[in-house]
């Protein structure tokens, strides 16, 4: 960790990236106004034939999936007791929380009547996967907020609530892992009900497990990426002694996931549709090469794992492949049965990109204010600056 000490603290000054984020946020607000005055048809390319698009495929499925680093790392540190990973738990929880906030905002835009979102609490239907999804979003967002709250409490000098949360951390983490397990897998369960619609390259009775394990793999990839990005922003070196073992975890998760996908395709007798090399086959190959084959193959070599460039590159590919998988399941794999092609509209893309940019801006802001990184730009770094 001593490598992380070599950063040079900088004062916040609004620069190029802040300006971009501000412009995207304003564009997002504009689209939001149009969406709520003119209806979903005016801003999206959604239709009766294709009722779920980018906001479900990217914002919901990927937003939740890429937040999986939070439950994975809290379990590793607090349950498996591998305390050396503690320094990167806080930024991971913050990413998880922001990821879920991103999902909620996207859902508020995608729902036809979002002001009725509380109906899920009042009118129950335990037979519905969406009912499970709704409860998991609510409860796990609360758990993430609680897991992160000590940072905020400590900052404002409220030591008693921080101590209470600290005492309760084990049950809280267990609750978080259970909810995440349910939530990650439930997003796959959403598609169990469309055996006649989802393409055989993706449909499987094991979809919940596919979603769960791929989220762990890509969630770890996301932790690596995020360490790299924040390292760049704050001129810190990568914590290679932590990230190298994480990459091993990623190899195992993605390896198991890759095998499960292979089994599912064999059971569906769907190898033919890869060899046909049609639309679905090509998208599948791209997804599986980026998301499974390359990261697993490259990160199996110690030499590449310990090289920051290869490590970050592989993590990036795993995340990209994960995003492709979710888009393939929600869009590519559903197109043939729907009898239409779906391309998100410009305004749909603006909403997704605007939300990602806003999330990143909030992350950057939070990291500057609160002591999130062990030697971040928070109060501690100033002391270090004086000491140096």
């Amino acid at each position, binding site marked *: 960790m001593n490598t992380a000490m070599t950063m040079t603290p900088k004062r916040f000054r609004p620069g190029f990236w802040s300006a971009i984020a501000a412009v995207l946020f304003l564009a997002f607000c504009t689209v939001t106004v149009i969406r709520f005055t003119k*209806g979903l048809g005016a801003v999206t390319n959604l*239709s009766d034939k294709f009722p779920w698009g980018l906001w479900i495929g990217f914002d919901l499925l990927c937003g939740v999936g890429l937040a999986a680093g939070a439950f994975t790392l809290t379990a590793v540190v607090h349950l498996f007791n591998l305390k050396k990973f503690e320094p990167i738990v806080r930024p991971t929880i913050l990413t998880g929380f922001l990821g879920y906030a991103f999902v909620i905002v996207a859902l508020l835009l995608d729902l*036809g009547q979002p002001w009725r979102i509380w109906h899920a609490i009042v*009118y129950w239907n335990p037979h*519905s996967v*969406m*009912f499970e999804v709704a409860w998991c979003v609510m409860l796990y967002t609360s758990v993430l907020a609680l897991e992160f709250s000590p940072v905020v409490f400590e900052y404002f000098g409220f030591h008693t609530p921080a101590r209470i949360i600290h005492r309760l951390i084990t049950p809280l983490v*267990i609750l978080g892992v259970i909810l995440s397990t349910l939530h990650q897998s439930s997003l796959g*369960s959403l598609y169990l009900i469309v055996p006649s619609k989802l393409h055989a390259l993706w449909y499987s009775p094991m979809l919940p497990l596919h979603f769960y394990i791929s989220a762990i793999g890509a969630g770890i990839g996301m932790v690596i990426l995020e360490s790299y990005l924040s390292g760049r922003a704050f001129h810190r070196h990568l914590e290679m002694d932590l990230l190298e073992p994480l990459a091993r975890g990623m190899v195992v998760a993605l390896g198991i996931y890759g095998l499960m996908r292979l089994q599912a395709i064999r059971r569906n007798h769907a190898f033919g549709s890869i060899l046909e090399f049609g639309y679905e086959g090509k998208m599948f190959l791209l997804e599986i090469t980026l998301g499974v084959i390359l990261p697993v193959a490259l990160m199996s070599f110690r030499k590449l794992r310990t090289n920051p460039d290869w490590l970050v590159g592989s993590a990036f590919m795993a995340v990209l492949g994960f995003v492709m998988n979710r888009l393939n399941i929600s869009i590519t794999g559903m197109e043939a049965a729907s009898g239409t092609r779906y391309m998100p509209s410009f305004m749909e893309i603006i909403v997704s990109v605007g939300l990602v940019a806003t999330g990143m801006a909030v992350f950057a802001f939070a990291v500057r204010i609160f002591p999130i990184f062990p030697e971040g730009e928070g109060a501690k770094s100033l002391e270090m600056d004086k000491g140096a």
Partner: protein
Amino acid sequence: MSMGLLVDTTRCIGCGACSSACKEQNKLPGKVEEVLTAYTWTTVQPKEGLNVRRMCMHCEVPTCASVCPVAALTKTADGPVVYDAERCMGCRYCMMACPFEVPKYQWDKAVPVVGKCIMCAGRLKEGKQTACAEACPAEATTFGKKEDLIWEARTRLRSKPGAYVNHIYGLSEAGGTSVMLISSVPMDKLGLKSNLPADPPAMRTWQVLSNIPDFIGVWGVFLYGVHWITARREQVAKAGNHDNGREDR
């Protein structure tokens, strides 16, 4: 007593009286469209020289009702699958999941709801038949008890074997439906889904969902067990070091 509809495509003359009656009955705006929309709950499509009436199939175990997170869609004892617009929050999972692609959305509205045939549930309560069956001049759409309709369909298939393909669409599709179709042309050529499993799709998600309470208990105990073991190990390791230290002294 579960009611249903039998649609005989060989009898349909394509006059569209059913669609018009439906619009009037349910106060749906606009003209009758070629495909189902939020404002056209039933329509007649010319296919293979026949006229094929499309509408909600009113499944016995409706996929839409199983996926709706707020239970806005429900199967009534009379047979209709009805929709409570006041509950719906617009997640559109019903549209995504329906094997027959029936529920449609008001994409043009700022406060949108789902639109689909409700088998004139209100009229059925009053002991009347559906508006479409009443309007049909060719007896192509017959309203009645589902068991009687199955009997009627079988009688027609048996008495005129050359005039029909031997398939009652809706008897086993997606677990069976209250609306059934018979035809002289194979169903897949009429644009009807022919790849539907005979078990209700809702069973596939219920198999997972029904196990959640058990799973929570086992997973919670397992995770706490892991924590217990690793924490104990750390304690033992610490105590061991402490003892060693004392001995050295």
